[in-house]
């Protein structure tokens, strides 16, 4: 006689959507390599998280030459591998915003029982397409408006005004990365705080990026360890 089965609900999804700049300028100074490394680490960490109170789903949208859904929204523990980014082309951020809006508003991919999504925008330049319409549409959409939105400006050429408007975390208006190592560390901080949120089983509290653990604290000999 077969053993009986008993249903349990999947833990509430916690959608994390990365909008990654993969334009040509990302190809220099190890930036795209850092981004690739960061994503691999993130997938590995998310996949190992407890699923008792929340299940992290990860989706990646790239914009380099053209905007594309690089990784459809997938439960992190099911992601086998993530295709490497290749830098090239312009910065069609508007098209990426459009994809992001459709994804966030998709009630099948993100059911109403899901936790509020986390949107992470990473860019080193200015949009090269007609971006303002899609950008405002994203910010105005019901779910993206409620989402936690974080932005990272890489280098000095990033469109900081736009990234600042994108970010809605009052404690962390806009992050900056001056080199490849800082990109990696930014993603570690995002990974840690998303993991903490999935564990705390809720989004009632702001997603707190711990600056100290991202910054290199000169008087902190354990900074490496915590980063």
């Amino acid at each position, binding site marked *: *006689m*077969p*053993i*009986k*089965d*008993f*249903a*349990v*609900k*999947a833990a*509430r999804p916690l959608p994390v959507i990365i909008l990654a700049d993969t334009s040509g300028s990302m190809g220099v100074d190890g930036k795209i390599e850092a981004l690739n490394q960061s994503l691999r680490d993130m997938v590995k960490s998310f996949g190992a998280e*407890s*699923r*008792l*109170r929340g299940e992290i789903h990860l989706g990646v949208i790239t914009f380099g030459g053209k905007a594309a859904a690089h990784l459809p929204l997938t439960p992190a523990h099911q992601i086998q591998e993530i295709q490497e980014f290749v830098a090239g082309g312009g910065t069609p951020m508007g098209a990426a915003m459009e994809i992001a809006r459709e994804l966030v508003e998709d009630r099948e991919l993100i059911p*109403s*029982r*899901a*936790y*509020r999504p986390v949107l992470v925008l990473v860019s080193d330049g200015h949009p090269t397409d007609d971006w303002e319409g899609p950008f405002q549409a994203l910010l105005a959409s019901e779910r993206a408006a409620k989402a936690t939105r974080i932005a990272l400006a890489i280098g000095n050429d990033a469109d900081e005004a736009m990234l600042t408007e994108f970010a809605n975390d009052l404690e962390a208006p806009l*992050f*900056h*990365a*001056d*080199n490849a*190592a*800082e990109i990696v*560390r*930014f993603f570690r901080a995002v990974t*840690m705080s998303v993991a*903490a949120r999935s*564990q*705390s*089983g*809720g*989004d*009632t509290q702001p997603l707190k990026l711990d*600056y*100290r653990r*991202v*910054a*290199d604290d000169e*008087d*902190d*000999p*354990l*900074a*490496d*360890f*915590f980063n």
Partner: protein
Amino acid sequence: MTDNAGRSKTPPKRRVVQDQQGIEYQLRDKLGEGGQGVVCTTDRDNVLIKLFTGRDAEQRRHWVNRLNWVLNQELDGLRIARPRALIERPYPGYVMELMDGLESLQASLDSSRAALQDGTGLSGYLATGGLRRRLALLRELATTLAGLHARGLAYGDLSPANVFVSKSIEHCQVWLIDCDNLCATERLGHGHLYTPDYGAPEVVRGERGVNSLTDAWSFAVLAFEMLTHGHPLKGEAVLDAEPEEEAHALRGELPWVHHPDDTSNQACEGLPLELVATPRLQALFEDCFNAGRDNPLARPSLAAWADALEAAWALMLDCTAADCRSSFYWNEARQCPFCDQAAADGLLLAHAWYSDASPEEPHLDTGDRLALALERPVALHLAPVGMRGYSEAPLVCEVRLDKAGLHLTPKGEGELTLVRIEDGKTFPITQPQTLSAKADRRRGAAAGLLLAHPDEPRLRPFWRFTW
């Protein structure tokens, strides 16, 4: 993060912390990480370090003060990884020892639940020891918490991440870590620290601090989760609803999933409670989550839990179906509720006290029962099962059931007498004896074992059974 352009060129720093005596510990891996602390393994075997990493100076001072207070508490004899030494630099923290071969209960719950979720059914439940081991682990945990409460202390932030259990399912060690949350009385104005899902409603609402009554709530949630893989407050009204509904439930604003009258939030996931909890355990859950939801004083004590878990554990039989092997509660048909196959054999012993004072009815039934599963020897002590003192009471004999029969072995100074109920005839058992399982010898007659021990001459347990 903009002030460190040259950082990658500096050599990696040593991850070393030092305790008050100047002993150095090299940090290895992070075992766990909470809001303001991190627990790490070190280069020393079985030595863990917990560091307070919060930045707020006031909170840090408060944490260190509390830790100094914990260091002075009498925790000997309790399975709590207590602070052994203080770390002062570069973060405040402490050193604790934890024996080898343990893992967090969270890891074990995770793998068991993932199996149910990913379509491999109860395989994870069984791989983590099934019902029998869950009851044993919970009994151990309840006993530790009851011991803590008996000393006037409360644990504070009970969650599966703070409970460490044997990795091997052959063992049932349970240790609490993270004892820096220990407190003597209700803690007001200290942030109401709790782990989501396990915090008592009044703590989640921010009205009260933690104490032994909030420990009682957290324990009951953990027990319910371990046994059923459900949450007592997350039923139909919560699981498919938006996250806000869950927040309402955890604040105690919805009925519990097995509320006797209000079915608006009834259970809709996990194992049925009646399969994994005895009526006595079910009653404790009801008291805790129904009346105890709003009234902390209505929650059963940890001592009550420990007793009921011990009694439940004594009723386990093993399914003999090769693809099942579940452990389950004794029932007359000895039928495994997980696969419906009947177990090969089993014997129920009913506990009574023997009293000379009323020769007409000398057996005072206590209601306690003990199931003998095949090939699982049970030690009989003077105290009844279902009491935490059971295993410490004087040992009288060992009984073991196998295909050949019921083996009776007197132990130590214990005096064992076999009684035939129909005519009252007695047979002293002074050396190992076997009641044969052959059909002509096992005929369904009423019998009993009378126990005695010179240490406690007035206690005469009588275990009645049918053979």
